[in-house]
């Protein structure tokens, strides 16, 4: 029997493969056509494709401009590195002025741009201790950030515990979200715990129970009820509360905190992917609450830079109970004072033409009147972005002047009583270009022995 007489069994697999390849080429044609519509004729195409094209284009552009890298590198700033030696020499040249009578005695802590270190200075401006924690040491495999983006890392704020433990907040320039997380380290810069979320800008540690308040940020892609007037995706800010061990207890969306309040229609309109840019968090402590009858203890004060707004949020109802805008702009570091006022660093930001500089402003929330605390005589003072201040126990104010490259201490009357100024000429060499945060702790606050003080002691001992 001739085998050829048999009807050839149909090649099912081949037919399937053919159909499949036809379908696949059709899909490719659709994508190709859509790409031409998008790139050549600038026509909007089907949603996911549109996003893919825009994303691809941006990725290519960033790659070409060298902002992407498959390997994450951080400059070596360890104790014996060339960079740290240079920095120490640089800091030795800083200019210090000191009014011994009126200043608040203690140790000053300082964080600058481009460094993942915090410096501790004595009143003469001498570095007596240094904490150093590279981001990649704290987060070897960070899943909460875009690990392939080349960024400039900095510590935006910190909190010192008496035993030398320290909380630090990482921020990255060159990526979004720019919040890179929180870590707790000990006095010898050993890692204790990390909070791998996009914590940014600021943190607040409740003095009574050690609970930590911080700010995190995520892109929200679709509107939720009440947020329809924002444009999406929007970088949404959240307040988080952590236990002293770094466990997250709850979070509040700042956008949703405005929904359903009398402030909704004024505060929740308009475009801008970085709509809020919250940069400060603090809490109304029981001993302060009596000075603020309109607020309740435990309520949280935030500064929302891009809305030029301050807001007080109740953590129980998760709603805004008070919000205000005024004659300040791009403000930072709002905090409660014992005078029943709120003091803030008013950057008056981004006013390039006819720029007059920044100021420290005191707001009376009852009357909405403001008073300029500093500068008093038109001293040169200012930074377009950054800037932070801390109230000291005796009523003095410690200021980090941001791009002004100074740390200043003023009295509540605006008198300059202590200052630490980096040499500006060399700042471009050192690339630090800004003081991010500065605060002062009284000498009896700390129970650990700073490194260099020990050196001094050794030297004295050696001299004896």
């Amino acid at each position, binding site marked *: 029997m001739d085998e050829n007489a048999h009807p050839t069994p149909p090649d099912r697999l081949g037919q399937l493969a053919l159909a499949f390849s036809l379908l696949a080429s059709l899909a490719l044609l659709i994508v190709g056509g859509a790409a031409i519509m998008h790139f050549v004729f600038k026509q*909007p195409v089907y949603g996911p494709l549109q996003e893919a094209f825009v994303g691809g284009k941006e990725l290519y552009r960033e790659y070409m401009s060298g902002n992407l890298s498959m390997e994450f590198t951080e400059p070596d700033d360890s104790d014996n590195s060339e960079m740290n030696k240079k920095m120490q020499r640089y800091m030795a040249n800083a200019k210090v002025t000191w009014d011994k009578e009126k200043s608040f005695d203690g140790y000053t802590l300082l964080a600058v741009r481009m460094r993942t270190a915090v410096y501790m200075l004595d009143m003469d401006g001498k570095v007596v201790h240094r904490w150093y924690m590279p981001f990649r040491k704290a987060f070897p495999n960070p899943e909460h950030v875009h690990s392939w983006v080349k960024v400039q890392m900095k510590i935006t704020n910190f909190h010192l515990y008496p035993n030398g433990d320290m909380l630090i907040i990482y921020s990255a320039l060159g990526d979004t979200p720019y919040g890179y997380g929180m870590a707790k380290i000990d006095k010898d810069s050993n890692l204790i715990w990390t909070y791998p979320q996009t914590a940014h800008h600021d943190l607040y540690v409740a003095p009574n129970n050690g609970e930590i308040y911080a700010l995190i940020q995520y892109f929200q892609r679709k*509107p939720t009820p009440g947020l*329809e*007037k924002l*444009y*999406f*995706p929007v970088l949404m800010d959240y307040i988080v509360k952590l236990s002293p061990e770094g466990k997250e207890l709850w979070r509040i969306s700042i956008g949703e905190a405005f929904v359903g309040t009398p402030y909704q*229609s*004024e*505060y929740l*309109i*308009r*475009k*801008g992917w970085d*709509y809020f840019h919250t940069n400060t968090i603090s809490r109304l402590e029981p001993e302060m609450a009596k000075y603020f009858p309109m607020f309740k203890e435990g309520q949280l004060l935030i500064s929302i830079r*891009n*809305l*030029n707004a301050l807001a007080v949020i109740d953590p129980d109802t998760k709603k805004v109970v008070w919000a205000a*805008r*005024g*004659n*300040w*702009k791009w403000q930072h570091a709002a905090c409660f004072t014992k005078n029943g006022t709120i003091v803030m660093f008013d950057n*008056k930001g*981004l*006013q*390039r*033409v*006819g*720029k007059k500089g920044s100021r420290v402003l005191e707001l009376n929330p009852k009357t909405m009147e403001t008073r300029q605390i500093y500068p008093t005589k038109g001293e040169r003072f200012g930074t377009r972005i950054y800037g932070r201040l801390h109230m000291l126990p005796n009523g003095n104010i410690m200021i980090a002047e941001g791009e002004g490259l100074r740390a200043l201490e003023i009295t509540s009357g605006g008198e300059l009583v202590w200052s630490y100024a980096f040499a500006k000429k060399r700042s471009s060499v050192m690339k630090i270009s800004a003081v991010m945060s500065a605060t002062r702790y009284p000498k009896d606050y700390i129970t650990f022995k700073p490194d260099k003080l020990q050196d001094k002691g050794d030297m004295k001992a050696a001299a004896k």
Partner: protein
Amino acid sequence: MFNRVLLALSLLSGLLLCYIAVAFVLYHHYKVEPPAVLARAFQGGITYYQEWQRGHISVLGEKEDRGKQQSLSKRLETMINTKRRVQWEVDQTYDGYTLMTYKNHTGIFLIDMKGDIVHSWDVPFKKAFPIADHVHKMVKVVMVVEDAHLYPNGDLLIQYGGLNDTPHGYGVARVDKDGKVIWAHADNNHHDLYIEPEGQGYIYTLSHHIIQDPIPGLEHMDYPSLMDYVVKLDPNTGEEVERVSITEALQKSPYAKYLKLKVEDEEIWDYFHTNSVEKLEPSMAKFFPMFKEGQILVSIRNLDLLIMLEMDTKNVTWATQGSWIRQHSAQFTPEGKIILFDNRGANTANMELSRVLALDPETKKVSVLFPTPSSDVRAFYTKAHGRVQRLPNGNLLVAEGLSVRVWEVAPGGKVVWRYALPPMAGIDAILSATRYTKDYIQFTPNRKGL
């Protein structure tokens, strides 16, 4: 002696030039601020250079290319005559003639219900304003007619605008039925015209100007800033009779908080962007007990805000935001409602479409007038522009801006007349559409017998 003075002078001027050059290098490369005057000069120069590179500036001065314009006119007319699509539910419309203005063209056409041209005007900006000192003559603009008003005798008020330029308001002119200029008001009037139907027939429109220095109490704004005004013009001479600053009126009113909102990042210099103005006439005032007759309703696009402005006290007596975004064309209706065109503009990320709303000013509740389920309209959207006219029988005439369509809608939302032009290079928007009845018109049209 003379030589020495000359030498000293030339050395001094050389020094000055060096100073300026160094200041520029410091400003441009190292972002070091020179004195404010120099900073402004440098910023201006840099911007001028960039605009020139982009081709927005012609050094020889703004010249309208008549050849191109004429061919555009011809194409526009051919398109209107042959490519328009009209759907008409004959007995349900408010019949009459529709006056339409366009983007990128100064031609204005009066068309009948079938879409045939009845009369046309084409008064180029340069003809109305031969001197035009109120605009930047070196900027290449997209010329628009944002609004027009027809008088019974064929006189026409034309509201010119120049996109690409700031201020973009290019002024108001009154021309007769043959396009002869009667008067032209050389101010940065923009967007909208309102003509008193009774009495003197005063014209209300908007104006805006650039303010360089911070206004006391408003230092938080970005300067230079575009500030908006409501102005009142004499219909016979075009002279300005009255002017009220929106900024000042808001500042002293209980609604000063609206001066501190966040506007879009790329529009911080254009804080208000007012786009419609309407007076509360005595005949209408009885439907609005909370307002007084003579008050002016102004729509402020960039704040999603409607305000009631009192001209004589220069005060704002009422203001509200709502669920609308970048609205246009707010006006009163005898039902005691305020209707407006809600663009939801530039909100493409949220995939929202435009709509016509009715707002109850008492309860602040809104209802959608168009499109409704009975409209059977799928995509009604214009990012910018958009205009609505309430017709005496309760119908709405809606110009869909960048979608080049005009709708007449019966109460309930049913579409009774639809006029659409195909997209055409250059003319990509119908900026205004106004319906006039047959007996309103008392002149002999130049195209088609009445």
